[in-house]
Every structure is written in structure tokens, then in C-alpha cells.
């Protein structure tokens, strides 16, 4: 346990180091990197949706599941919001219905995973296609973009009297809530227990199905919230909004040191990883690297964040010429 903890600490130390290296490289490569505009506006807001979706994803992966449909829920919530606004409904109603869409989408994921005990991996690949498809059905290849300024302020504007963007405040509040839930509350301990050993967790009185259902609903609602912020930020509701963002969300969580098989990880690591990806994206953006090629770096980062520790462990085994301990088979 002590070694495990030291490993975790060193992983987070590594992330801090990576972040610093990123900032240094960024400021060397581009004089605009450390400009106040980039630091206060572009850097935080570009990854805001990824950042807030990574929070419930962390909880879900720690509990031993995964939700690949988040970007599609984001897109679906976005077009529902757009359609309602365009057909003359109030913005508040549109936001409410969009959140409800997220809740229903998450609920369907959760029910399929828990009631039928199906693998979340496959179910959410299915709903990834389903929800994105429904987004296309709702709005076709159109886009809604005539949103009121009071709404787009949510994405562009800052809190009056400060330089903090509204979406930054939302993220900060969510981080506090999630840290309390995962690292302080009983529910958080239950999540780790479930991820480590589902059967043992059930026998110790945790209602695994109910907790997981709640997690998927939470993930859906937060993805819908991310959809609302995304729509406000670009002032545009399109069915292909945030296409492929699940890659970024999963990358951030795994880079943050969360074990893909569940049971291990911390929000500190994930928040650090969010900043690393934000810096990376910002640097690539300043270097005029297109989004399609940016995803090369993110894809590599995803693979390396799992491959790196695995290879390190293998090399360690070779060096010490010691067979793997029986308990470590799960980490592999």
C-alpha cells in the first residue's frame, strides 16, 4: 500500500513536471503563449467542456466502467437547445430541456449497463452512435446560431469586475463538489471499492447497481451542461458539435493516473492532466496546427499514458529479475 501511494505521488509529480515543461516550451515557441489574453481567455475556455466532462468520467472509470457517449450527449443537448430557441421558446426552457435530454441519455446508458449487466464499453459505443445520430435527425445539416447575447456571455463573458470567465467559475465549483464526493464522502470510498472488487463491494452492502446508475445519469447531465457551454462559446448549435471529444475526455482521465480497470486514481491528477492538455492544445493552436493533426498528439498521449507505466513496470521487472507479484496482475 505504501509503495502504491508513493507511485501515485510520483505520477502526480511527473504531471506537474510535464505541465511546467509544457509552459516553458509554449513560451519559447510562441511569444503569445504567456500573453494575458491567452492565459485568461483562450487557455481555460478551449478545454472547458473537456474539463467538466472529465470529472464524472473520473468517477465512472474509478468505479470500473466507462462512458464513451459523452461527446454525443453534448451534441444532442446542443441541437435540442438550438431547436427550442429557434422555434421561439425561452432560453431558460431550452436550457432546462437540454439538461433533461442529458439526464435521459445518461439514464438509458445506466439502465442498460446495470439492469442487463452489459459491458458499458459496448453499450456506450452503441449510444455514441445513437445519440449522435439523433442529433443529426433533430437538426439535419443545419445550424442554429442566433442566440441572445445574454446566453453567449456564458461562454465568452467574464464575471463582472473580474477576469474570470463564467465557465471557469462553473468548472471551479464542480471541481470542489467532485473532490468532496470522491475523496471525502462515503460514496467516494464506495466507488473505489466497486472498482477494485465489484463482488466484494456488493457483499459489503454497497448497492452497486444504484450507484452506477447514478454515475451514468450524472455523466449525462454534465455532458448536457458541457453542450450548453459549448453552444454558448461558439454561439452555434450543430449536430457535429464536439465530435470525437470522448478521446480528449478519456485521455485526460487516464493521463491523470486513473486506472482504466478501476479502483485507483485521484482528481488532483485529472485536474493536472486537464491543464497539461489545455497547454498542449494552446501551444499547437498558436503554432497553427489544425485540429485534425492536434488529435495525433492527444491520441499518442492517451496510448502513452497507459503504455508508459506498463513498460516501466516491465523494465523494472527485467532489471530486478523478479517475477511479477501475484497481486499485480490486475494492474497489467
Amino acid at each position: 500500500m505504501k509503495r502504491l501511494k508513493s507511485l501515485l505521488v510520483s505520477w502526480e509529480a511527473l504531471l506537474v513536471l510535464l505541465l511546467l515543461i509544457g509552459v516553458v516550451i509554449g513560451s519559447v515557441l510562441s511569444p503569445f503563449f504567456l500573453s494575458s489574453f491567452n492565459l485568461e481567455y483562450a487557455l481555460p475556455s478551449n478545454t472547458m467542456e473537456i474539463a467538466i466532462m472529465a470529472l464524472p468520467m473520473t468517477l465512472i472509470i474509478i468505479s470500473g466502467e466507462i462512458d464513451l457517449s459523452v461527446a454525443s450527449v453534448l451534441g444532442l443537448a446542443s441541437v435540442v437547445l438550438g431547436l427550442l430557441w429557434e422555434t421561439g421558446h425561452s432560453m431558460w426552457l431550452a436550457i432546462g430541456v437540454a439538461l433533461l435530454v442529458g439526464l435521459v441519455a445518461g439514464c438509458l446508458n445506466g439502465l442498460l449497463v446495470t439492469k442487463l449487466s452489459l459491458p458499458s464499453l459496448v453499450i456506450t459505443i452503441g449510444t455514441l452512435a445513437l445519440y449522435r445520430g439523433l442529433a443529426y435527425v433533430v437538426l439535419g445539416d443545419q445550424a442554429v446560431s442566433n442566440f441572445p447575447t445574454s446566453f453567449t456571455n456564458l461562454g465568452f463573458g467574464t464575471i463582472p469586475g473580474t477576469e474570470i470567465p463564467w465557465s471557469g467559475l462553473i468548472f471551479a465549483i464542480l471541481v470542489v463538489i467532485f473532490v468532496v464526493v470522491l475523496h471525502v464522502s462515503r460514496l467516494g470510498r464506495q466507488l473505489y471499492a466497486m472498482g477494485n472488487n465489484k463482488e466484494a463491494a456488493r457483499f459489503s452492502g454497497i448497492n452497486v447497481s444504484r450507484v452506477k446508475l447514478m454515475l451514468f445519469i450524472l455523466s449525462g447531465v454534465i455532458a448536457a451542461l458541457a453542450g450548453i457551454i459549448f453552444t454558448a462559446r461558439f454561439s452555434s448549435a450543430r449536430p457535429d458539435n464536439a465530435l470525437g471529444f470522448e478521446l480528449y475526455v478519456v485521455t485526460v482521465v487516464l493521463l491523470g493516473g486513473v486506472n482504466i480497470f478501476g479502483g485507483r486514481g485521484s482528481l488532483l491528477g485529472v485536474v493536472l492532466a486537464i491543464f497539461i492538455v489545455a497547454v498542449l492544445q494552446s501551444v499547437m493552436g498558436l503554432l497553427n496546427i489544425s485540429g485534425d493533426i492536434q488529435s495525433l498528439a492527444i491520441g499518442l498521449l492517451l496510448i502513452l499514458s497507459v503504455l508508459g507505466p506498463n513498460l516501466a513496470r516491465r523494465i523494472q521487472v527485467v532489471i530486478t529479475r523478479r517475477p511479477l507479484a501475484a497481486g499485480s496482475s490486475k494492474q497489467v
Partner: protein
Amino acid sequence: MTTTSQEVERTKQRGQVSQAHLFRLVNRVRELGLLIVLLLIILIVGIQAPRFLSIDNFEQILLSVAILAIVALGETLVVLTRNVDLSVGSMVGVTAFVTAYFFKQLPQSNLLLGILLGCALGLVLGMVNGLIVSFGRVPAIVATLGTLYVYRALVFIVAAHTTLQVNASDVPASYLALATTQIFGIPALILIAAIIAIIVGYFLHASQSGRQLYAVGSNPEAANIIGIRRDRLVFAAFAASGLLCGLAGVLWGARFATVDATDATGLELQVIAAVVVGGVNIFGGSGTILGVVLGAIVLGTLQNGLNILNISQFWLQAMYGAAIIGAVVLDAFITRWVQRTILSRRKKA
């Protein structure tokens, strides 16, 4: 027949029918079910739009299914080992673009050389996946989600440095003929897909490695104990998936003639839909090639039917999603039923 005699009959059958037979029966029932679904689609669409029933249209359906089926066959090998390959769409995209560009730059070169180039490229990409998964011990979903974007970015990089789009007029007619040539009145594309299906089917059914693939998927620990080298098989499955994606990419370029960096984006969802609709268990270890081919044909027919009925193509993706979920849910119920049947039989015995 009275209830009692029915029960007697059933008990008699229970004694005779072995467990393996039961699984084979389930497979047959699934394939039969798919055939019935297929006939229903044909009937429903055919009544509303008679031109759907023409020979020409069926040929169109099979043409559109051929490439999907080739990729789905490779995916089947991977899924049988309890893994998944999400990067297939990007691998097809890379090979389609590179092959088409090759023929644009060197129109005089040998046709076979271009085909081999595409296949070799696919094989290399698949081997990279296999290395990361089987020797790097990265879960397939993570590894191939990563390579999905890495490979796609490679196409964009290649396109940015060469040409944004390869047009039909840029490539030699002999390359395009790959998709249009007819042999004994059957388009070559369909024949190629059929031959690949027979080869893969024979390999899975009759070869030692083929049977080991099922063993690895249905019980990895047991497979390990009896000396099956799991890492190698998983690696080989990913490599084969890449190779078939390479071939599919070559054919993709020949069929669609105009190729850009976004080609075959999202193909992985159709492929996975075809595989799970075709009855391959997503937990590995069970599934047949006939089922996968039927799964691909059902999806292709449905797509064509929507087209002919003038239903918006925007429904397609939602439909693939629903098909994946529906097939997995159905599989879960079938598995439960089989397990319960086996259990009750053991209790009686």
C-alpha cells in the same frame, strides 16, 4: 400433442443434445433470425417501392456491403479474442488515400504493386495496434481509440503535404476497374469479398489457430493453461484486421474514385454494428463468419431501403447505434437462456 408427451419429448431431446450442439443450435437460430429480418426488410421496402426488388438494386446493395464485409471479417477475428479494433475506419482511410495517391503519381506502375502497397500499409498499422495491445498490455479500447485519431491525423498530414483530394481522372482506369470489372457477370468487388469470407471462414472453422482464437476469447485462463500463446494470437488478429482494412482501403479508392482525407470516417461504428448484429459475442469466443456476412448484408439492405424510401440518411447513424445496442441486449438474453438451460439439464442429470 398433449402437454405430457411434449415434456417427455423435450426431456428425451435434452438427454441427447450436447452442450456444444446447443451452442451450434443458437448460432443457427441467430443466422436464421437474420435471414428472416432480411426477408422482412426486403418485403416491407419492396411492397412500397417495387424498384427495390430489381436485380440491379441487389447488385448495388452487395457492392456497398462488400467493403464493409471485408473490414467486418477482420474485426470479427479481433472481437473473437475478446478485444475490439476501433481504428478500422482510419486504417481504411489511410490506405485508400495512399493507394489512390500512389496511382496518381505513378499511373504506369503495376496494378498489383499498388494493391500490395495498400495491403502492406494496412498490415503495418494493424501490427502497431497488435504490439500495443498484446505486448504493451494496453486495453484494446484505449489503444485503438488512440490509433483511430493518430492514423486519421496521418492521412491529414499526408494530404497536407501532397494533394487534398485524388480525383477519378487522376488515377489509371485499370485501378478503377478493380471495382467495376465483372467476372462471369458478377462484379469483381463482390467476388473478392466472397473469397475473403470463405478463406477467413475456413481458417476459423478448420485451422488450429482458428480454433485457438475461439479458445482465447471464451476462456483466456484455460487457453493459457493448455499452452495457447495468447499474446501471439491477439497480435495476429490485430495484424489480420489491419491487412483486411488495407485491402478494403485499396478497393475503397477504386470504388469511390474520389478520395480525400476524411474518407471512411466513422466506418468503425458500421463495422462493429455488422459484427454484433451478425451474432459475434462482444465478450469473445463465439460467432460465425456466415453470421457476420449476413449482419453486413442486413445493414446494407436497410441503408439501401431507407435511401429508396426517401427516408433521411440522417437516420442511418442512429440506426447503427440502435442495432449495436439491440444486438448486444439480444445476445445477453440468449446467453442467459443457454446458461439456464445447461444448468437445469445438469440438475436433472
